[in-house]
């Protein structure tokens, strides 16, 4: 029997008084494409940030590829892992940010090769060849030597996807990857993500693109007030929601 790639159990996260995540439990299976939807402040972005440890959880546990994230259990207590250990765990996930966060002082190609050469210590020639192949895959072969400021938002986001893929992650996390884009640029980014989904990559996508969710997602998870309200096949959750809150959200969005 296969095991979930990500197992989230009873996770809570507070920002001061505000409960960002409240007793969230969820499994993500290998090869699955999961879309997280919900109003802003519902906790979906926080959940992604907890999985790649840009935010630390206050209670509960997250296992990635069978390994507990951020802490080690020893003698009935949890000990925080060193920064080096956390960095190693992060390499299993790739993150794509809403605002791209490309390194502005490096070209598209250098953005992609930075991680493999600097963090993984791999050979520059080999990494370069892979990076060029990734740029081809996201349709940007011609832009290898361009700086981020010279690229459109859609092109920047595609470079950011290639940068995340260069680390060969087992799981790709997308945090509203098209929200900062002009409407006419959304399609090119979604096309790259669809191709990635077809290639068998496990993906968690926080998105407001319900069309994308309907077409690509194996499962849609609706969150509200830091908790999972409803989940299931895209056609069920989006087409025939059972919960009142889901219905209200969907009617507000569409």
């Amino acid at each position, binding site marked *: 029997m296969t095991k979930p790639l990500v197992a989230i159990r009873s996770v809570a996260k507070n920002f001061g008084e505000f409960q960002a995540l409240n007793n969230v439990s969820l499994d993500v299976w290998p090869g699955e494409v999961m879309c997280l939807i919900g109003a802003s402040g519902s906790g979906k972005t926080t959940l992604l940030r907890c999985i*790649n*440890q*840009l935010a630390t959880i206050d209670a509960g546990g997250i296992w990635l590829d069978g390994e507990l994230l951020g802490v080690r259990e020893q003698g009935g207590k949890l000990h925080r892992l060193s*920064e*080096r250990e956390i*960095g*190693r765990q*992060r*390499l299993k*996930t*790739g*993150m794509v*940010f809403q*605002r791209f*966060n*490309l*390194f*502005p*002082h*490096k*070209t598209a190609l250098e953005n992609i090769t*930075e*991680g493999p050469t*600097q*963090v*993984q210590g791999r050979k520059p020639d080999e990494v370069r060849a892979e990076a060029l192949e990734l740029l081809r895959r996201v349709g940007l072969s011609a832009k290898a030597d*361009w*700086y*981020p*400021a*010279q690229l459109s938002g859609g092109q920047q986001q595609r470079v*950011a996807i290639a*940068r*995340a893929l*260069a*680390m060969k992650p087992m799981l790709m996390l997308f945090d509203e990857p098209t929200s900062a884009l002009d409407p006419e640029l959304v399609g090119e980014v979604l096309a790259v993500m669809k191709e990635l989904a077809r290639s068998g990559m496990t993906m968690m996508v926080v998105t407001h693109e319900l069309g994308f969710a309907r077409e690509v997602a194996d499962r849609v998870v609706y969150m509200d007030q830091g908790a999972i309200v409803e989940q299931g096949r895209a056609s069920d959750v989006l087409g025939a929601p059972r919960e009142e809150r889901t219905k209200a959200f969907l009617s507000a969005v569409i």
Partner: protein
Amino acid sequence: MKQAPALAQGFPDLSGMRIAREPHWFRWISAALIVLVLAAIARAFANGQIEWSYVSRFLTAKVILEGIVNTMVMAVLAMMLGIFLGIVVAIMRLSPNPVLKSVAAGYTWLFRGTPLILQLLLWFNLALVFPTIGIPGLWSARAVDVMTPFLAALLGLGINQGAYTSEVMRAGMLSVDIGQYEAAQAIGMGRLRALRRIVLPQAMRVVIPPLGNEFIGMVKATSLASVIQYPELLHNAENIYYANSRVIELLIVAGLWYLLAVSILTPLQMLLERRFARGTLRLAR
């Protein structure tokens, strides 16, 4: 095709007419007054008690040239020490470790809080506190032999500069978007590597103009090292006028060399700025 609506009447065609030049009387009068004042100052100096032949003779004297070389060597080395310390202290200041943080804050407080000339004198007279210095059991020496004017000036100027530079560096690092740290972490970088590879190169763009300022300040601050016998430009000029009493002439010689040195530094700063502006220009490739 639709007809454009007819234009209203009564507005003459101005396309052939030029704009007349105004006389600008006030501009001419004020310019003339300023030129007059400058001419008067120049005349006063030309007729004053200055032997210009001494200025031209000592401008390229061997001792003066050695002085400017020593000044520049000290300025560059002390600035390098200052930048190194500044980066280390700025990183300590932004660290989550409270001990590192307060040590960094204390360093800045101490060395910004006392006059530079006092610090130079303290370093130079360190032998009064510690007659011998060294690592117990391994190596030791008499402090008077180790603490030469050169070393005292380097430590005094460099460590003092580090306190100022750390604040400049910290400002630069704070100017880099938090998303850049997160993106660096997301590809597995640790804090120090993210700082070195991603944050500092971007901070440099912000930091170079104030660092240029600091370096120009450093070139002139080396003149304070004359009080601890370091043979820099002003010290050597003073030694000459102690012998020949041509005080003003030699001060002018020193002043001209400082001006020249600073004039050369400005375009160098522009070159550096261009180097670190990589990627910030939308069109330039």
